[in-house]
Each structure stands twice: as structure tokens, then as C-alpha cells.
């Protein structure tokens, strides 16, 4: 039926699409062993593609095809109606004053009552794939298909580059992600936030970037430290996000704040792994201090190149809020920093695909108060944050464990 026709169309134009339809991949996943072992085996009935639905979703890597108009002419001849959704190229969005051509983000091919949703993926700096949001422009036919039932396009998304597998299902040859279940898992957390480049530009107009040599050097060091930290944590499979000053830098100016002097990351305590410390040490980042313990207020600090330090704060989830702890070494005083609940989104920062809280504004405001837009050079982590509360003192007999300084 429609899928078969569509696959015929794209293969006649040599366009390497792959199947990302969550419904079908879900079905396929159940039989994945069998499908993998007999990639060419005939299937007795139409088991996957005939499942009732309005759409079938495919992905297309932008760089693997030339934007040939021929495809659309052939499609029309075959009876397809098609719709193309274009928008600004986010890869140029961060760039001062560049305006490129708009790029295609989504295609929809409709035939009778079924439609093919073709999502265009772009490679971006940070070695990941990105797809854009689906936004209709004024003149577009809003009833072309029931747009809100689409599985992709409500938000932009970020994905790893998938390994693909050639399979034959329901007698149709298609490519699918090699591991459908991990793709589906990835899909559920794929929402991507673009940096607020426009606001960042406005910020720099108000507070011009000190192009001092120190600032340049610090940015280079902070970037390489962040790259190393991300590599290490990703290898360990520990999910992390940009926190505190690093998060503020991303949100406010799409860059490292040059006077911040460290790199801050957040990790949910449930994702804590004992290997974190030894792995960082092996990666060349010695432990500088460890405050608190897994059960309470854990905080790690590693020494990066020269005087740049990597702070990892562990976050504890409660019913209606999330918090992390702080410890003053000389007095044993404890502090608690409160945040409203948040989820994680992907973003791109210094050529890295990293997590940030999706509800970034609330997160930043909790930490830095309503005046977060104004740069502050003097910052006391014990009193400046607007979400800090005293949290008692560590019992003296625990100090050896909860206050470790190297």
C-alpha cells in the first residue's frame, strides 16, 4: 500500500531513509531477534505495516541526499500530495548576523487516507543528530493531515547517530535502527532546547564581552574540561546536566562566563555510581574535595587544568522540590539549595550535546534570583544564592567522612 509505494519512490531516487515510526518499531522490537537472524526471510502476513494508524514515520539524513526536485515530481505523478516544512537553519542561528537559506525540516507525503511523515535530521556540532520542530506557516493547509497526531515535531529533538540495520519486514526492505528499543527510549527524552541566541546577543550589547587574554584562556580551558567531563560521564552512563554558573552562562549568554572560574554539573543522586571518582582520576582529574555522603548533600570537586575546577553537585528529589547540599569545610556548616521540580532537555553548548533543565528559567531564577541577567563578579555560595538555607552542622564524628579535602 502507501508505504510500499513510498519506499518504491525513494529507492528509485536513491534516498536512504530509515524507519523511526514508534508504533511499528515497537512491534518490530518484540520480534527483533527473529528479524535480525533472518533479514531476508519472507513473512507470512502483513504483521507490522498493516497495524492501523494514520502515519508512518521515516527519517532522512540531510547530508545523504541532494535536494532534488525530481523526487517531488515523481511523487506527484504517483498520486502523492506533499507538504514541505522549512525554517531557519539553527546551525547558523548562533552566529552573529548570518542569514542563510531556510532548510527543510519535515516532509509529509499523503496518499488517500495514509500519510508518510519524513523527518529530516541534521548533523550538528557535538556529534549528534537534530530534527526541527514542525511549525505551520500562515498560508499552509492546517487540515492537510491531523498534525497533532504526529510523533515527531512537537519539539525539536536530539539523537545519537544511530547504527542502522537492513531488514525485510512484511516483504518490504527497510532500514531500521539496529536497536529499536534503545531508539524508542531515546525518543522519549529527545526534546531539544536551542540556546537563546537573540537574548545572548542583547546581553553582550549591554555587557560587552571582555576579550581579555585571561577570559579567552579560561574559556578554552573550561571548554576542554567540560568535554573531558562529558566524555567520562557518558562512558560511565551517568546522566548529568549543566548547573549553577555553567547553566547560567548557557542560558544568559550561550557561552562560558569568563569570570566564573569553574565548571558546574548536576547529577541526580539516584544516578550516582561509585566509579565516578576513580574514573575521573584516571582521566587526569584528581579529586580536590568531597563533601557530604551519598545519603546526604554529596558534592565532588575535581581539579582540572591549572586553576579550573570541576564541581559536581548531586541532587535529591523530594515530593515537590529538588535540592542539593553545600558544606563549609572549616565550620562543618551545611547548606541546602532548593529548586522547583524539573526535567531534562538536550541542548548544544561549546560543541557538546548536553542536558540542561528544560525549565531553565525557573532553575536559574531559583539559584540566582530575579536579577540573574545582571553579571555579578562577587559571589558567595553560602549567602548569595536566593535559594540557600542553613541546614545545620555535620556531627563532628562524621567530619572525616563528609569533609574530605585533598
Amino acid at each position, binding site marked *: 500500500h502507501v508505504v510500499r509505494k513510498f519506499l518504491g519512490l525513494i529507492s528509485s531516487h536513491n534516498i536512504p531513509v530509515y524507519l523511526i515510526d514508534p508504533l511499528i518499531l515497537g512491534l518490530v522490537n518484540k520480534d527483533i531477534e527473529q528479524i535480525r537472524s533472518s533479514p531476508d526471510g519472507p513473512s507470512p502476513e502483513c504483521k507490522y505495516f498493516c497495524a492501523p494508524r494514520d502515519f508512518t514515520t521515516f527519517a532522512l539524513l540531510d*547530508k545523504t541526499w*541532494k535536494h532534488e*526536485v*525530481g523526487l517531488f515530481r515523481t511523487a506527484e505523478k504517483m498520486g502523492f500530495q506533499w507538504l514541505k516544512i522549512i525554517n531557519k*537553519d539553527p*546551525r*547558523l542561528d*548562533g*552566529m*552573529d*548576523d*548570518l*542569514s*542563510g*537559506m531556510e532548510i527543510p525540516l519535515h516532509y509529509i507525503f499523503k496518499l488517500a487516507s495514509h500519510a508518510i511523515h519524513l523527518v529530516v535530521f541534521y*548533523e*550538528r*556540532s*557535538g*556529534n549528534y543528530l537534530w530534527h526541527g*520542530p514542525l*511549525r505551520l*506557516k*500562515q498560508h499552509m493547509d*492546517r487540515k492537510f493531515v491531523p*498534525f*497533532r497526531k504526529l510523533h515527531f515535531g*512537537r*519539539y525539536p529533538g536530539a539523537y545519537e547517530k544511530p547504527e542502522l540495520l537492513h531488514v525485510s519486514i512484511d516483504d518490504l526492505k527497510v532500514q531500521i535502527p539496529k536497536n529499536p528499543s534503545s531508539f524508542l527510549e531515546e525518543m522519549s527524552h529527545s526534546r531539544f532546547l*536551542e540556546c537563546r541566541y*537573540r537574548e545572548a546577543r542583547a546581553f553582550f550589547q549591554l555587557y560587552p564581552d571582555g*576579550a581579555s587574554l585571561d577570559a*579567552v584562556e579560561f*574559556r*578554552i580551558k573550561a571548554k576542554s574540561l567540560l568535554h573531558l567531563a562529558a566524555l567520562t560521564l557518558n562512558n560511565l552512563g551517568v546522566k548529568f546536566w549543566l548547573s549553577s554558573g555553567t547553566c547560567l552562562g548557557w542560558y544568559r549568554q550561550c557561552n562560558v562566563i569568563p569570570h566564573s572560574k569553574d565548571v558546574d554539573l548536576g547529577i541526580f543522586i539516584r544516578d550516582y555510581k561509585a566509579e565516578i571518582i576513580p574514573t575521573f582520576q584516571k582521566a587526569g582529574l584528581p579529586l580536590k574535595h568531597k563533601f557530604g555522603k551519598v545519603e546526604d548533600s554529596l558534592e565532588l570537586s575535581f581539579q582540572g587544568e591549572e586553576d579550573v575546577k570541576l564541581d559536581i553537585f548531586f541532587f535529591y528529589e523530594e515530593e515537590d522540590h529538588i535540592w542539593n547540599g553545600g558544606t563549609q569545610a572549616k565550620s562543618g556548616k551545611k547548606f541546602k539549595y532548593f529548586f522547583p521540580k524539573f526535567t531534562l532537555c538536550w541542548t548544544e553548548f561549546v*560543541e557538546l550535546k548536553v542536558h540542561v533543565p528544560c525549565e531553565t528559567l525557573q532553575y536559574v531564577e531559583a539559584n540566582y534570583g530575579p536579577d540573574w541577567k545582571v553579571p555579578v563578579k562577587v559571589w558567595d555560595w553560602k549567602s548569595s544564592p536566593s535559594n540557600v538555607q542553613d541546614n545545620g552542622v555535620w556531627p563532628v564524628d562524621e567530619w572525616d567522612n563528609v569533609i574530605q579535602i585533598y
Partner: protein
Amino acid sequence: MEEWKPNPTVKPHKKRSWYLAWKYKLMNQRALRKLCQTGAVLFLLVTVIVNIKLILDTRRAAYEEEEESAQDYDDEMLNVEVPRHPVNNKKVLDVEVYSSRSKVYVAVDGTTVLEDEAREQGRGIHVIVLNQATGHVMAKRVFDTYSPHEDEAMVLFLNMVARGRILIFTIKDEGSFHLKDTAKSVLKSLGSQVAPFLSWRDMWTFVGKKGGEVYGEKHAKSPALSTWGDPVLLKTEVHLTSVEDAECHWPDTELNRRRKRFCSKVEGYGSVCSCKDPTPIEFNPDPLKDNKVFDVPVAVIAGNRPNYLYRMLRSLLSAQGVNPQMITVFIDGYYEEPMDVVELFGLSGIQHTPISIKNARVSQHYKASLTATFNLFPDAKFAVVLEEDLDISVDFFSFLSQSIHLLEEDESLYCISAWNDQGYEHTAEDPSLLYRVETMPGLGWVLRKSLYKDELEPKWPTPEKLWDWDMWMRMPEQRKGRECIIPDISRSYHFGIVGLNMNGYFHEAYFKKHKFNTVPNVQLKNVESLRKDAYETEIHRLLGEAEVLDHNKNPCEDSFVPDTEGKVYVMFIKMEQEADFTTWTQLAKCLHIWDLDVRGNHKGLWRLFRKKNHFLVVGVPASPYSSKKPSSVTPIYMEPPAKEEGAVAVPAVAAAEQT
């Protein structure tokens, strides 16, 4: 340049003031009306937006949240273009053309399409080409026919304009001094009755259709050598033809659609818009076997020189192994015509709002372009950087494909460049030969991503520093002793005559005689010997084999080098320390090669060809190769000419910076 001096005897433009007042009044009324119209349209638009928003909100409740946050970034809604000229069926254009000593203007249907009253520029014959069906301006040129050769350029241009186009001419200041008979007869053939008799400081306006009727001509003779003819104002009507008649009837293909779009918009590109036998816009050169640079992005840095860009892209797209999908043209400014050229060839183009001025503007444009290139092609390890005024050799990509692995593996390399600063017709010989040089030639080069991202980008000079990007890249703080690989015979050719630091004389002296490879598929020789240590072995071998020239002779004389072919000769010049280029500069001068600053050296050694022999120059004692000098030989010392030098050096250095 006497004629530029303000002449107190010429009356101020009182005569025209009634006209101007009337014109501006009219324009104000028009502006007012336009304002009202725009206001109404905007109001309508807002209503529509509000309505649509309402519909959206209700229908797509699920999307609501995102709509909120995305709205800041969605300027689409406001971007709706309001057509400025509502389509009407008017078939007649009102054309006004004004010619005078200090001002020219052309207005089409009340819209000023040319206005030049700047002092000390815009002298000569201004030409405007209009589309005969739409009345749109397709080309605007000025030919300073007071100066030599400009009339030839004008003839060339007029010949390229398609039949049927409307041509408008007007003279500012002086346009006859070097207007030769050929040019006059071309103007005559267009229907001008005055052109053959145009003389010193005459004022002249003319409107006609190429190969067709004349719409009007006005002329004011200069009464005396020291005065100008009275200003002339020509008002006439031009009858538009149908769009059908104004277009060629090429077969309907994707390529021809692009061609049609281009040819109905701009003029002056010659055969690409020819109806009968248009020149191709797709070239399909042979692919390269084992092309190592197929996936390397190519950034073409351009300004507003669309004709240059056109020539450049033609040669680039004709080079074997080119991958059009990897090409991005970066245009410095919101210029339409360069973008039209980019679209004609089906390439992608990016426009850049200019930041800063002059050299700093170029520098910021480079930075934005390089950053964007690596953003758009995040997988790329390299980028090829080209400029709009270069011809690209047919084996450009083959040359890079054979050498790029060196840039990847040898950390002592800074770049690969297609340009040999010393590669002139008489000094370059071997298309398969490569050198290592301590300078960074630019003009078609390959940049390593890690070099850019880790070193250059973070430190790139900020707009307020009025630095040249290439001079900055050549500074020791950036180059850090690394070298570039260059070919003996350049794989690019610098044809630009008009440019920031360029002029005709400079181009003639330093670029015109540059050798440019035209041989396809050159197999490079000894690529491995270009690696850091291997190159030293190679140089020692060469020097060992080289015959020492007679140092008693004058090195500037042809007879200094014997009449042989294919031999290797060496000469020793005085070079007290690493930065002593006194003798070298004099030698370069008399050999007629690049002498404005020091280029092409490697540890005090220069390699070039003379009379088809490899010719090595070693600076003694600074060069480590000085040990090869026989003790009997005294290094040649050449004294710089006394004084005067200072006066010459200043403009020379300024000019050298661009390249």
C-alpha cells in the same frame, strides 16, 4: 586631476530647485499614501494573526506550551512581504534621466534607481539596464571613460546585454576623453545620434532599446574647455512588452528554471542568458578516483563583486572532483546579485550583516564564515577557503586530495595553499612539485578544524581591532613556526583587479604574470618527502646535487644562470640573521617576483626556477644550509637603493596586506 576642483564659476543648482521642490512634494504625498497603505495592511495582518492565533490555540491545544516559548523566535508572522508595487496592468514607464557635472540620477516611474552626487567619484558614463517587461533594474554600471580602457569594458558590457533590454545612459562630469571610436559606434548602433560627436565635458542622456527603438536623447555641449555643458534632463516614456516576449524559450528543465530566474533579474553575464545557445550552468567534471577531499566543505568568501563570483564559481564547478553540495558562498552584506549568482548555480549562499569597517570587516566576515562552515559540516576535519576573485585550477581538488593527509598527520604544518607567491611565468616550472614554506600565502587554502577551533577562533581579532585576518594569521603568535605546503605552479589564479587593497597597477605588477596550472590530473611527486624531517633530507640531497653558480656575475642578469634545462643551481646571498632580508628583497626585485614582503622561504632557503632549471637561493650565514657553501664563495650582497625607498614602501606594504 584638475577637473575635480570645485569650480566657483559654475552656478549653484538654482534652476533645478523648483523641480526638486515639486518632486519632493510629490514624493512626500506618495510617501504619505504609502504609509497609510502600509498601515492598513499591517492592521489587517495583525487581525489575521490574532485570528489565526485564536484558531491555533483552540485547535492545537496540545501544542500550546511550545507555541508560547517558541513565539519569541517566530518572526515569520511579521515577515510577510507586502508587495511594494501592486501588480497593475500599466504598460508604460515614465523615465527621467539627468546628466550634469556633479550629479546624475535616473528615476523610473518616480522611483529613483540611480542617484550619484558624491564628490570625486562616479565620473563617466552611467549605464542602467531595465527589463523590458517588468521595468526592473537588471544592471547598473559606471564606466569612467575619462580614463583609458574603460570604454572597452563598456563595449564588452553592452555586447553582453540581451537584445530587447532598455538601456539608459547618463554622463557625470566627463565621459568623452577616452571614449574611442569603437565605443562611439556601438552607441551609435544603439540609436544614439549624439554619441559620435560627444566631446569634452558635454552632458548627455540617452534611453533606448537594445536592437530597437530610441525613447529619447538629450545633449548639452560644453561651450569652452574650462566649463561644462548645462545640465540636461530627459523625460520620456518606455512601452513595456509582455513577459513572454522578454524571455527566452528554453526547454523546461530544473536547470533552465534557475537560468530563467537569473536572466530575468540581472544583466551583463553574456552567453549564460543567450536564448539560442546558452552556456551550461552545470558542468559535471570527471570525478576523482579515491577523492580524499570529497567531503571537505568549501567556503567561498565573497563581497559584492557578482561578476567575479560568477567567473570564480564557473571555474570551481568545472574542477575535477568538485562536490557542489559541500560548497557554501558567504556574502559579506545583503547584496542581491551575488545571491542570484549563487542560486543560478544551485549552490547555497549565506549573507552576513557587515560588522565594522574595511579590513576589520573582512576579518569579521572571515571569522563568521569559518565558524559557520564548521557548524554546517560538523564532521569535517578541514575546510577549503576560497575567495571570489580566484580562478580554480582543473586539478585543484586532485592536488588537495593527494596532499591533505599531510595536514592531518604532520603537526608542523599550518596549511596547504594553492598559491605560490613566487610562482610566476618565468619562475615556476613543475606542476608535480611541492614546497614547504614558512609563510601563509592564502588565496585558496585548506584550514584544519582543530587549528581553527582550538587556536584561532577563540583569539580571533575583535571588530574594533582593525586587523587583517591574514596578517594576523601570519603573526608568530599564531603561526608558531608551522609551515604551509604550496605547489610550484599555483592551483589558483588571482584575477581580481578591483578590491579593498587592489588596483590595476598593483595587479599588473604582481599578479598578472602568475603561473596557473591548466594540466588535469597531475600526479604529485614525492608527497611523502614534504613531511617535516623527510623534507630536510630532500633539501640536503638537492643541495648536494646542486651546481654552485658563478658568484662573480650579476645575479640579476639572465646570463647568471647557464642556458641549460633541468639542472639544479644554487646561489648564496648575504643574510646576517633570520630576519635580514636586505639582499633577498633586492634579488626578488630584479627577478620581478614578489618583493613587497618576504614570501616563500624555508629556513633561509628559496626555491624557484630560472630558465627551466631549479634555482636555489641560500641566505648565509643565517640559514642552516649555509654549511653547503664552498669556502671559496663569498655570498652576494645587494644594497638597497638609497633613500626614496621610504616613499615607495608605504603604499606597497599596505597593498601587500590583502594577498
